[in-house]
């Protein structure tokens, strides 16, 4: 099975790899610069070891033909649902949410992994119908398929991951050629379900949404993060303060600064110029991903590439939008930047999928 074709190596998408590892480098650097407080050096080393694990996972993903993975999607799906359910039983509660499962010294976040399973499952479902474009029934079927894990993730609660899944699903539907009328109906249904959705939310999640509408509603409670992040980013100005001058980040004014808000740390240290470079790197990553999707003829491959790229793009845009105050705060890591094993490993596995599809494009 691990019969490795030499020709595969000729089709490695190096710009994609370069962009991803450039971002990972910046991540480690940013964590390192938090060193004077709260063991930044230790964070950087642990992040590096997660990168190591992620690279192994990436190589494993690359060596497997992605078509086999799509075929195995139902099995992944069932396993994924099982994992999400175990969170409710065995999960560890961190700041009001049960998102993690303990495996010895490690904590695994199943919802992270489920993003890839979600994409695999959709790719499997769409390609299984083999119709020119999915019918209304097919779309509803897929929605039902996706609805179960979606609700499980929301109830954890991991609103961030849940919110990423929506644009990913939309992107896949659009790519698969679902008719605009169908998508419009879905959107309408979604909007009309919003009040219902509001009731499902936990009080702190409601607060976050309200604060998004009015940041100074509660400047030291929920809005504190938004304000402090804005101050951190803005005070970086054009050229940044450098690692030693980044007081917002180093002095713990910034909450969650090594995980979800790491971009604010980066922005404070490197300013607009640094942000420009980072965003160009992310854009490049996304562009390459979409390019792989566009140029792939194999249906499973291109849906998969589209989905994985959509996960990257959605997660990056939502995280950056939230940190810069454009979107409400939802707990969501910045792919390849934020500290955290599950996110890093899953991101690198996603990268592996893209590389794998690229390498097998011209068979």
């Amino acid at each position: 099975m691990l019969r490795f074709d030499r020709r595969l190596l000729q089709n490695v998408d190096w710009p994609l790899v370069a962009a991803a590892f450039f971002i990972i480098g910046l991540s480690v650097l940013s964590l390192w610069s938090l060193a004077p407080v709260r063991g930044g050096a230790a964070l950087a080393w642990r992040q590096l070891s997660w990168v190591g694990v992620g690279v192994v996972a990436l190589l494993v993903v690359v060596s497997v033909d992605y078509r086999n993975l799509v075929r195995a999607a139902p099995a992944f799906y069932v396993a994924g649902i099982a994992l999400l359910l175990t969170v409710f039983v065995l999960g560890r509660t961190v700041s009001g949410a049960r998102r993690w499962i303990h495996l010895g010294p490690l904590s695994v976040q199943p919802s992270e992994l489920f993003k890839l399973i979600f994409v695999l499952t959709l790719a499997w479902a769409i390609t299984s119908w083999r119709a020119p474009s999915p019918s209304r029934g097919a779309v509803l079927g897929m929605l039902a398929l996706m609805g179960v894990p979606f609700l499980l993730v929301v109830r954890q609660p991991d609103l961030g991951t849940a919110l990423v899944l929506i644009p990913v699903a939309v992107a896949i539907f659009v790519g698969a050629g679902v008719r605009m009328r169908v998508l419009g109906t879905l959107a309408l249904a979604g909007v009309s379900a919003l009040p219902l959705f509001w009731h499902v939310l936990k009080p702190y999640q409601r607060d976050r949404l309200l604060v998004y509408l009015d940041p100074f509603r509660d400047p030291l409670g929920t809005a504190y993060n938004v304000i402090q992040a804005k101050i951190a980013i803005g005070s970086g100005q054009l050229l940044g303060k450098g690692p030693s001058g980044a007081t917002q980040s180093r002095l713990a004014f910034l909450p969650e600064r090594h995980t979800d808000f790491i971009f604010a740390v980066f922005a404070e240290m490197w300013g607009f110029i640094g942000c420009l470079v980072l965003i160009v790197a992310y854009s490049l990553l996304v562009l390459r991903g979409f390019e792989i999707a566009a140029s792939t003829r194999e249906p499973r491959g291109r849906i998969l590439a589209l989905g994985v790229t959509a996960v990257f793009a959605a997660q990056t845009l939502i995280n950056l939008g939230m940190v810069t105050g454009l979107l409400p705060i939802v707990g969501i890591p910045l792919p390849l930047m934020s500290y955290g094993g599950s996110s890093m490993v899953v991101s690198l596995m996603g990268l592996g999928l893209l590389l794998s599809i690229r390498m097998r494009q011209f068979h």
Partner: protein
Amino acid sequence: VSPPPDRREAWRRRVLALTAVAMAGFVGLLGQLWYLQALEGGRLQEMSERNRIRIRPVAAPRGILFDRSGLPLVDNRPAFTLSLIPRELEDRDTVLARVSVLIKIPLRELQEALERVPPDSIRPQRVRRGLSLEDVTKLEERKLDLPGVIVEVEPQRVYPTSTFAAHLLGYVREVSDDQMKQGRYRRGDMIGQSGLERVLDEYLRGRDGGERIEVDALGRPVQLMQREEPDPGAQVVTTVDRRIQEVAERAMVGHAGAVVVMDPRDGDILALTSSPAFPLDRFTGNLERDEWLRLVRDPMTPLMNRALQSQYAPGSVFKVVVAAAGLQDGSLTPMDRAYCNGQFHMGGWTFKDWKEGGHGHVDLRSALIQSCNVFFYQAGLKVGPEAILRYARAFGFGAPTGADLGGERPGLIPTLSPPRARHGPGWQAGDTVNISIGQGRLLVTPMQVARMMSAVANGGVLWKPRLIQRVERADGTLAYSSSSKMAGQVDLSPAVWAFLRHALTGVVNEGGTGAAARIPGVLVAGKTGTAQSIAKSDASKGQDHAWFASFAPADDPQVVVVVLVERGGKGGQVAAPIARQVYQALFLEKVAMVVLDGDS
């Protein structure tokens, strides 16, 4: 299994559209970043500065006042002050209520303190000084619940005793609203409000320093960014002798009045006390409003410095001036004699001697020694009011002495020919008789009497009383120094000075009215006085003010001691013993110390 080309083309278009959406997202983000970092950057940068930097004033330790031999008269010790940082008081009402309950401060006091400063000030506003260690512990324990509440450590005045040299040193208190208007002070500054603390405030205050501290979001100091050391206040060397000051104060316990101890050779003030005194240390902490009112309204006026601000009739002490005037002008001679039967009749009036039955035959010297009024009634008439008042002025009465303390009163010398319309019949012979024994419209301060006595002791030099020798900055440079200054000269012939000194020696040592001031081994010279209280309201008490003005040793005067006891009764009985205690400390205990030094 490749899809047909048209399907492929459609797919590419759809992916391209999605790409465009994603790229639009990134461009939007860049726009937001441009807004935050380039357009709003300056403002947010400023906010981040405020976010992390806390400015903490570091109060300069107030300069120390030393006595003439280098003993401190006051000192500083660290004290805890409750301060509020208005900007960091998130939920103001809750936090203030918590503090109020925690350390039992009226909520009103906290609110009032904040009303005086802008609500976004980052400068700590001092609310209450002198917190107990217990209160500090309570506040520190709940620190996280009390954002914006800090405990500062400030140097605070400590005094040897609560009332030590209260009028001389003066009290230090937080700047008042009126004083704020002068624009020289910052709110919360501790400034000298009376005495030397006030006169020397500019020197003593020093300059406050400050700390810029980086704090994290919980207000915990992370790093000291910059510390500007405070300039400590300058050290002041006074002319005061702490031991003598203490003795004088102890001797005055239970009496109202004043003691001035002066060196007649240079005008240095060795001790200056006014009784009753006020508790200095209560002012540095938190003087409650009613406690302050109690001090102000106290009928014994403890805040008044009686040595400089109270005016009394000099009584028989003034006989020295009358004698000097007569002897120098030739209207009196030492040989003048009179018979005193206890009464003096003039124009239908009878003036009494203080001694029932009189002193019998007296001459000028014995009249001074016995303080015979009848002799001086006649002497006064011989000398004449014009000469008496001229010499009174020459001896420095009727004008402030220029002592280094504010608020001095000039006393009063009556004028001979006041405008008739306003002041009744004008100067009468009876006025002359009265003024001859230091009564009537003649008022002096104890400081003026001390200066007069110094002139008698030193042969006519009127010194400007000196309290401050020098002021040294913390770096050792001299900020101010003063040498002795003559304020005037009383021109009498040496024979007259010698006569006066000889007579005053007799007052103490030859069974005169000042015998109670006598000490073995040292010749004390002095004059007693018993002044009628001019305040009619006090007449019911029937008590006169007791004076004793003296110097010693009589043959080589080194020190002048003036004692005034309000409503004390007879000068010889009340004031002279107090002077004796001072002399004992000055001469006998000093001698003992010297002997001790010799042994070792």
